[in-house]
């Protein structure tokens, strides 16, 4: 054996290099050359909105790194100690070891406060970027076959991220997060039949007990991260198997992926992006205070701070609790059925479930079994986009409700006025958002259609010999036009009796939904219409337009 075998295979190189030898050594033990061959030049489409998932992934890595540092110092015990550290306003105060160790990290360890702040800012960013990423997937229809499963896994990741955040910020056992736990306890107690017992078992006795911080710690650093990493792994593997979607463009089809290869461009950009995300988080942590637990002091069931809110991603739940009108609840025999807690739980649960199974709902409505690898422009799926806008509005109103008292003080309003307005907005807002968004999407589609057929207004006014003024339109190139004309077209499903001559309830329902989704639509420009627009001039264009209007759009 004289020469090293290059991992690229092919010709045997005579000269031994260090990298070549190392690669050879590994390959001879792991078959890694196969992996390198498969993945090394894999193509990834390059659009900014495709990077939001990466933001989530990188902030998660930052969380893992800083969190590991914190675990070397944090004590997840509720045993009572007397604080004797450097922060004067807490000196001599009894608190749990958990809070004591958090204060120790913040005030006595160089860089400890920085690590805590990076960890917390990264956690806020983690959930926010998952949310934004999820919205991007939704509005571009990237959850359609074959990615429905990945959407569901992503949804699980979202819930896990929120759970991680909640368990995490409850660890220091401070007044703010302790009151959050108190609210959770009240919520749990309100569950019919089993609530009292769940609360008792969860807290290891009566609230607050001495067990909860330790248990949350186990969840926070062991159980939840393990499940999260596993789900994340599946999520990424599915991404690699299905390959990434891409926006429509000249040369891009449903059967190819156009972009940059992993090595070297994508790796450089993605790797660089990791450092940038890390850097931005660190910048925030260097300059801005987050979660100053020393101001809140140790948890005690008696005091509370004005402006007690959970971290932003739990806001929608807290807001839901604030918006329930009072007096809801009744007795079933001797048993209390508390609706004022149960109702928001049910409403939020329903909302979350609809989000989780939406790809299957839409798949059922369209009955479309083809694979979709071209990302939709949101305007080309008006009903879906409008539903998304309604959902976002619903969530946003609940989120805003969580800060109702701060809205009141900052805008000089009364809390009663704010809450009542938000109650009304919770119902009206999504409806209005739906209607407005749908019409805006259809209008944008019409505009696209017009530009595709007639081109851009160039601003050049020309006077024709007959005295008529026209504005010269500049036609798009074929490449520019492709984006405007290449979207999927759908039509409401026609009800047809099955073999037995019957129309089932399911079919009827499906036809209704498909009608709702697709009745108002703009059809994409066809080749014939295009030629007519270019060739025959005005009259033909008008005929084409009116024909399209009759067919289905308006």
């Amino acid at each position: 054996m004289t020469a090293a075998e290059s991992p690229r295979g092919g010709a045997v190189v005579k000269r031994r290099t260090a990298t070549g030898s190392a690669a050879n050594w590994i390959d001879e033990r792991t078959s890694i050359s196969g992996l390198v061959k498969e993945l090394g030049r894999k193509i990834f489409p390059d659009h900014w909105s495709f990077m939001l998932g990466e933001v989530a992934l990188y902030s998660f890595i930052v969380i893992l790194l800083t969190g590991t540092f914190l675990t070397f110092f944090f004590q997840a015990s509720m045993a009572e100690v007397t604080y004797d550290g450097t922060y004067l306003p807490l000196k001599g105060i009894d608190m749990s070891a958990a809070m004591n160790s958090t204060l120790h990290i913040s005030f006595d360890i160089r860089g400890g406060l920085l690590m805590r702040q990076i960890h917390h800012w990264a956690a806020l960013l983690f959930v926010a970027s998952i949310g934004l990423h999820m919205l991007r997937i939704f509005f571009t229809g990237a959850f359609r076959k074959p990615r429905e499963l990945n959407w569901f896994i992503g949804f699980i990741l979202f819930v896990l991220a929120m759970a991680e955040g909640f368990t995490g910020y409850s660890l220091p056992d401070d007044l703010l997060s302790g009151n959050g736990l108190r609210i959770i306890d009240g919520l749990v107690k309100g569950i019919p039949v089993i609530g009292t017992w769940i609360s008792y078992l969860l807290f290891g006795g009566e609230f607050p007990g001495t067990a909860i911080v330790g248990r949350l710690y186990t969840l926070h650093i062991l159980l939840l991260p393990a499940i999260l990493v596993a789900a994340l792994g599946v999520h990424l593997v599915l991404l690699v198997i299905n390959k990434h979607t891409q926006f429509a463009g000249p040369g891009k089809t449903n059967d190819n992926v156009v972009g940059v290869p992993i090595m070297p461009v994508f790796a450089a950009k993605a790797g660089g992006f990791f450092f940038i995300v890390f850097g931005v988080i660190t910048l925030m942590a260097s300059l801005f205070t987050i979660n100053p637990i020393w101001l809140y002091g140790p948890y005690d069931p008696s005091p509370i701070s004005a402006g007690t809110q959970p971290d932003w991603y739990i806001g929608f739940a807290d807001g839901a609790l604030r918006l329930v009108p009072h007096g809801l609840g009744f007795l079933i025999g001797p048993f209390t059925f508390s609706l004022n807690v149960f109702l928001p739980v049910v409403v939020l649960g329903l909302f979350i479930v609809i989000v989780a199974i939406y790809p299957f709902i839409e798949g059922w409505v369209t009955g479309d079994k083809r694979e979709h690898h071209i990302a939709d422009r949101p305007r080309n799926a008006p009903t879906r986009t409008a539903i998304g806008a309604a959902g976002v509005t619903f969530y946003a109103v609940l989120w805003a409700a969580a800060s109702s008292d701060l809205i009141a003080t900052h805008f000089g309003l009364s809390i009663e006025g704010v809450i009542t307005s938000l109650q009304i907005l919770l119902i009206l807002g999504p409806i209005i958002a739906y209607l407005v968004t749908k019409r805006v999407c259809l209008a944008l589609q019409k505009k696209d259609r017009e530009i595709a057929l007639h081109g851009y207004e160039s601003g050049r006014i020309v006077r024709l010999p007959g005295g008529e003024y026209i504005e010269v339109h500049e036609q798009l190139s074929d490449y520019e036009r492709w984006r405007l004309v290449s979207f999927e077209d759908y039509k409401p499903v026609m009800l047809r009796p099955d073999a037995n001559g019957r129309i089932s309830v399911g079919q009827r329902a499906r036809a209704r939904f498909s009608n709702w989704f697709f009745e108002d639509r703009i059809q994409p420009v066809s080749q014939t219409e295009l030629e007519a627009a270019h060739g025959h001039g005005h009259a033909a264009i008008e005929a084409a337009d009116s024909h399209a209007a009759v067919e289905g759009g308006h």
Partner: protein
Amino acid sequence: MAKPTTRPARKQGRRSPLASAALIVIGLMATGGIYALFTTSATASTTASASQLTNEGSKLFAANCATCHGMSLQGTKQGPSLIGVGAAAVDFQVGTGRMPAAASGPQEEQKPPQFTQEQIKALYTYVGSFAPGPAIPQKQYLGGNGNAAKGAELFRINCAMCHNVAGAGGALTEGKFAPALGDVSAKHIYEAAETGPQNMPVFNDKNLTPAQKADIITYLKYLDNNPSPGGIDLANLGPVSEGLFLWIFGLGTIVGVTIWLTAKAN
């Protein structure tokens, strides 16, 4: 037409172009100075006797307060009785500008005080002379040398639910609010606690002893003098401001970076 080679003769004397400007400045300074001279209250104040203060106080009261509080402090439909409120209440309300009351709203808010220290002293001497009530706090409790830890604990139990743990203020019902406490003088903090202005409860000396009030003041002074070690504190409004900041600046910056990152190089 030939240009005149000599300037036309001056009708008036020589005058520098700056003369007008200088004249205006002198005139303004003169009038301003004379005005200030006439309206400056006596900084070299002679210590007025109690009866002098009461006298002056009653005049000020009649002119500024009696409309709502009644000529004998008995109260009217517009304002409560002031009998027994004590000098502390008057010093607080007038010293922070809350009184005389402005246009009606859910509550009277702090505004620039309308009276000088001397006038305020006269007012509270007058009101205090009607009936015994909380007096101006003794200086020993205002120095900020109490126990900050005890003060912080008392603050969290008695005050934080309205004013927020860091004194950032908070909402009350029907449009009222508890104001932020940053940079409020020790004296006013003490007086407010003792007299319970508007909807604030009364924390008499049996509820919070003077020493305990001194501890609370010490804690608040500590907050004023020690900015947050974590950096800029986003107004201490808690997770709401942190979340807003993250979405707008944090995520905003990062999305901006992604757009730059995927944009085609020129």
